[in-house]
């Protein structure tokens, strides 16, 4: 086995039990806690006990706990996450159809965070302890302290309601609902495929506010990591060497320092992805964005157990996979890393 394969195998050997533990904890918590999904589904009071018993039987809730658990696990392995009691469709299907929306939002959020976070981090490091550094640091900490849902709502009030520049919510204007064709589920790509300029503009307009909302909190995080990593690198001897050879400051910073500072920055991208999903829950709720995170909240409100269990397992696997991929990316960026 080559080094990389062995490393992947090792990481998987750790990731699989972690996901297993997570899924089991969720299963147990949902059953221990009060709140009956059958009653929630049937609408509470005035339901005959026979009907409740029948529904329980249909959903397999009358079986002993350990049988439910094994059935649940074997379903998980086959990719069967059960059926949503709210929509009546298989949970896996619901999630797959919603994944592109969440990913599209996450990519824009990340992009915004990188475009504003990394350069400000570099400037802060280069001008360490000068007023501009202090200002940027405070901005970064401030972006941490932003309540995401509030930022989204403020954007809606200012840019959608008061100024009318951008739409309030959703992914596409209603008037395009019929001419739009869903191919990949990434609306920006779909609009490009369709080749309709009007729809493209509309899709982009809908992406701006949620994307910036989600990206803002990540920006500070990325900026801080960039600043710290740059400070570390700027202190090294090879940077001094580069300067003493008479290289321009811009070249030293961008070519010599930044490249090495990028390694910890990339590491953080993996960590950040979990944060991003957390932020997506609130962003999707505020902007009625039809993604996975919004689906989770809907499932919670309706006590839709299967959907809830399935979504959490799905997000768990997803985050673990992203972390694994980021880890593997190291070797591409940093040739010193060998597995």
């Amino acid at each position: 086995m080559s080094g990389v394969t062995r490393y992947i195998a090792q990481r998987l050997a750790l990731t699989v039990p972690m996901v297993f533990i997570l899924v089991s904890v969720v299963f147990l918590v949902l059953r221990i806690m009060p709140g009956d999904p059958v009653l929630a589904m049937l609408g509470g009071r005035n339901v005959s006990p026979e009907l409740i018993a029948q529904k329980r039987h249909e959903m397999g809730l009358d079986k002993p706990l350990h049988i439910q658990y094994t059935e649940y696990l074997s379903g998980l392995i086959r990719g069967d996450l059960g059926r949503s009691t709210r929509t009546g469709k298989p949970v896996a299907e619901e999630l797959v159809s919603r994944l592109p929306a969440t990913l599209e939002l996450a990519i824009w959020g990340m992009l915004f965070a990188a475009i504003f976070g990394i350069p400000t981090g570099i400037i802060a490091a280069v001008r360490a302890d000068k007023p501009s550094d202090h200002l940027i640091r405070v901005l970064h900490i401030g972006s941490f302290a932003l309540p995401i849902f509030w930022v989204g709502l403020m954007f809606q009030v200012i840019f959608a309601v008061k100024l009318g520049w951008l739409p309030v919510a959703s992914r596409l204007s209603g008037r395009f609902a019929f001419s739009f064709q869903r191919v990949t589920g990434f609306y920006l790509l779909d609009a490009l495929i369709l080749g309709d300029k009007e729809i493209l503009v509309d899709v982009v307009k809908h992406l701006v506010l949620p994307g910036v909302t989600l990206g803002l909190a990540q920006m500070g995080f990325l900026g801080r990591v960039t600043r710290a990593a740059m400070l570390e690198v700027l202190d090294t001897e090879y940077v001094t060497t580069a300067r003493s050879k008479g290289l321009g400051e811009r070249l030293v910073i961008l070519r010599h320092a930044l490249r090495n500072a990028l390694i910890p920055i990339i590491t953080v991208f993996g960590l950040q992805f979990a944060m991003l999903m957390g932020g997506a829950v609130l962003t999707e709720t505020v902007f009625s964005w039809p993604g996975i995170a919004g689906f989770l909240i809907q499932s919670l409100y309706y006590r839709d157990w299967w959907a809830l269990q399935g979504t959490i397992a799905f997000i768990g696997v997803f985050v673990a996979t992203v972390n694994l991929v980021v880890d593997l990316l190291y070797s591409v960026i940093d040739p010193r890393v060998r597995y």
Partner: protein
Amino acid sequence: MGRGLTAWLVRKSLFRRFRGQTLLKVGLLIVLSFIAMAVICGPRGGEEYGRFAGIPPYNPAKSYASLPRLSPPTAKNWMGTDHLQRDVFSRVLAGGWAPLVVAFASIALAMSVGSLAGWISGYIGGWPDRALSLTMDAIYSFPSMILAIALVAVMGSGLVPMIASIAFVYVPTYFRITRAEVLRVREYTFVEAARATGASGTRILLRHIAPNTVNAIMAVSSFNIADAILTEAALAFLGYGLPPPAPDWGFDIQNGQRYLQSGYWWLITFPGLAILFLSLGFGLVGEGISDLVNPKRRKR
């Protein structure tokens, strides 16, 4: 006398270390003002709020027939009124109580449970340590906001479920810090020396290892409180906070969301700013503490 002098010197040096710590000072100022505000304007039992007459100007939980409905900020109602003819300014003043209590309680709980588990797990080692670490990593890697929301949703809304769910999310943070520190510290010669003199395992843990982990824990907790305040606000926003009509910033923002399309900006702007500044305060304190604790960064 010698004792008093030492204490004085320590205080003096600590005070000197404070000099130039603008971030820490500003952060502390913000945090202390919010705490004072919560104490002065918070609930007094029943539906009554505030320790002094006239502060907050109106009862934040009560509708006033004399107040206009959904009025923008005026000289009388500085932050406007809401749909139930309540004074928004009074609600903002009194609403800091819940986030502060939830944040402090949950982080304290997470710190106690997580650190204790980390100390013990790191000290014992072997398979219990490995199993516990894996479980903690599983929880840690999962998006904390989603976990907190899911937990509070199954536990029900209110103060205690919010504290429990936020605490649960942060247990792994303290577990990991403490465990790593224990693994580092236990190799030191002074621990070995203690063992050689015949000190018991518990004694080594409590007297020699535990004190060494305190620094690392303190630096993180302030950032976590800042984060917990945002989480509390998000939970309240989603409807899992204090039962109405109690003032709670997050929930007030949810109420304001209904009137967003009408452009009634004051309903969401002011509670949101309060959340932002409170969280920012703790963030600045955390930044200041890590500057203090970390001499390498202090130089920068």
